[in-house]
């Protein structure tokens, strides 16, 4: 029998995939590291034949950048706010869905719709819902949310338009992200719930276990592997948040005139590209990579301790 690891035929079959991976994954990955550690690396200058020295100047520039600090704060806040909220909501909805028989499929479809809808399109709809047309006393009409707020007699809030506050923007973006994140989480958690043997619940029922205790002592531990998966993936997704903000605010990454107050790290990376600040963009990417790596490691560590079996 031939050694499977050195089977030339196997390599031949793998070749198309390997070539594509080399060109589009491994080379960019390695090149990102290279560019990040070349001081002041610049896409235009390299055509001029300029030589760069290795160093951490790019990282220093990025970290000392005032905008980057704001973007980092935005990104972290978005994660910290949306991941727990959407996970808890998704779990509650999944449990509710799992406990109804009629219309379960209908609701499942309804809840899944955001997942298959273009995120830019959703962002525009969110903008329309929260918007107001006109400024200050000259506002002519409001979006549906302000109309609803008006029904309760409260003052309209400037959510997304010129002069809107950072907090109001944050609220809209978080709402968007939570809503957009729900379907996938519901799907995963519902799958987990449906795999839980019903006899655990029958056993709990016979032992007179209260609903709350059943939820916390049986349901949550038994779907904890799915919960861990959902939390880890949504943290990763959260740190890469970008398209939601583009969808709501457009490329300005914030209300008009705010110089991008809702921007994120990925947004910063994109900002750097047209300026050919490839060194800074790479450094920022690597910082993001580092953050995600650490958070995922922490997640993994915690779930190893808390996730059962």
């Amino acid at each position, binding site marked *: 029998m031939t050694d499977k690891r050195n089977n030339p035929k196997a390599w031949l079959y793998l070749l198309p995939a390997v070539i594509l991976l080399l060109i589009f994954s491994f080379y960019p990955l390695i090149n990102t590291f290279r560019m990040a550690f070349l001081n002041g690396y610049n896409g235009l200058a390299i055509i001029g034949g300029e030589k760069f020295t290795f160093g951490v100047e790019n990282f220093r520039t990025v970290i000392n950048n005032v905008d980057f600090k704001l973007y980092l704060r935005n990104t972290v806040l978005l994660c910290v706010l949306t991941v727990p909220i959407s996970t808890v909501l998704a779990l509650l909805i999944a449990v509710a869905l799992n406990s109804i028989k009629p219309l379960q499929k209908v609701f499942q479809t309804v809840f899944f719709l955001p997942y298959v809808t273009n995120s830019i399109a959703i962002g525009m709809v969110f903008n329309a819902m929260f918007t107001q047309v006109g400024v200050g006393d000259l506002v002519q009409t409001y979006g549906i949310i302000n109309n609803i707020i008006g029904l309760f007699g409260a003052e309209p809030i400037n959510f997304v338009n010129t002069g809107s506050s950072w907090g109001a923007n944050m609220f809209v973006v978080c709402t968007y992200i939570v809503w957009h994140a729900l379907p996938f989480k519901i799907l995963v958690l519902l799958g987990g719930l449906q795999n839980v043997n019903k006899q655990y619940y029958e056993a709990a*029922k*016979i032992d007179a276990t209260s609903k709350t205790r059943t939820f916390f002592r049986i349901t949550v531990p038994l779907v904890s592997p799915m919960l861990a998966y959902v939390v880890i993936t949504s943290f990763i997704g959260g740190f890469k948040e970008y398209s939601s903000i583009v969808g709501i605010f457009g490329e300005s990454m914030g209300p008009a005139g705010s110089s991008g107050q809702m921007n994120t790290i990925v947004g910063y990376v994109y900002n750097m590209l047209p300026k050919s600040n490839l060194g800074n963009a790479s450094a920022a990417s690597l910082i993001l990579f580092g953050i995600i790596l650490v958070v995922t490691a922490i997640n993994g560590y915690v779930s190893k301790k808390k996730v*059962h079996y």
Partner: protein
Amino acid sequence: MKIVLQNLTKTFPSRNKKGETVVAVSDLDFEIPDGKLIGLLGPSGCGKSTTLYMICGLQKPTSGKIFFGDSDVTGLEPEHRGVGLVFQNYALYPHLTVRQNILFPLQNLKGPDKLSKEEMLSRATEAARLVQIDELMERKPSELSGGQQQRVAIARALVKAPRVLLLDEPLSNLDARLRLQTREEIKRIQRETGVTTVFVTHDQEEAMSISDMIVVMKEGVVQQIGEPQRVYDDPENLFVAKFLGTPPINVFDASVTGGFLCVGGDRLFEMPGEADREVVVGIRPEGFVPAGDGVIGGKLVNIEVMGRDCSVVFSNPACQKPTVRAIVDSDVRIAAGADAPVRFNLKKNKVFVFDRTTERRIMF
């Protein structure tokens, strides 16, 4: 706590046709005496598990009543019935240790029944000791063998001192050796606690060996209730006779002709006063006694020696199966090759006669 089932019926809506129903359990009406171990026995689909689930309250009867002692529990939710249930695959919480699993029911107690932490722990330890798993308290269910899991499940069911203990196919997930051991264990635990216990099984040997009383069911209808030996010795119909006993009873097409019971050309017994008619005869394997001039016989197929006794397998055209199996003392030597004729006399109390159409027993 005695359990009384009164005209208990359970129907399910049919899967394919609208409006039609499938009767799972029909008109169950019997009493389970206090402190006894009862086996609900029958082939799969006979309604025995449904009966068990109705007793514990996870399923509601379509009609009829259930009493625990004198109190009607028919409408009571399972959590208020005070029953302990051991599931077929144990349903131990996989994320909890053995101790936590056993403590779980106690931690649910509220109000006046609420126990202190020390009390809970001591009761859990006591239950664990009863089923002999007190050394495994810190393990997770996945680290236990099937038999150990079974014991944990029993401990969890017993720890809250239930009025009734219910076991659903308690031995079906165990291997043959463990099954023997565990069934004795169940009997011992039941004796020590004195709790009224109902268990469900399709294995007649299991039911016969440990039950104080067995209830044989078929297609949702009770066939016979009684002490295992009595039911075995005195089956009321052909189904019960066929279902109990390993190897199974030998069934022959027979007739009553001129006051004699005849199988093929052989006259077995006199049946005075019986009108001529077609019947079915069942003969237990241990009912055959080898005798050269015996009343029944056939062509020898094989002799299986099993040490203590041996099986004589022979063919008889009147038998409903291709071969007849007789169990005889291994001292008896039947030295004969294949196809040699063999003859047997019969022990009369091992021979049962049934009506061909109703399959009910005809006494003689």
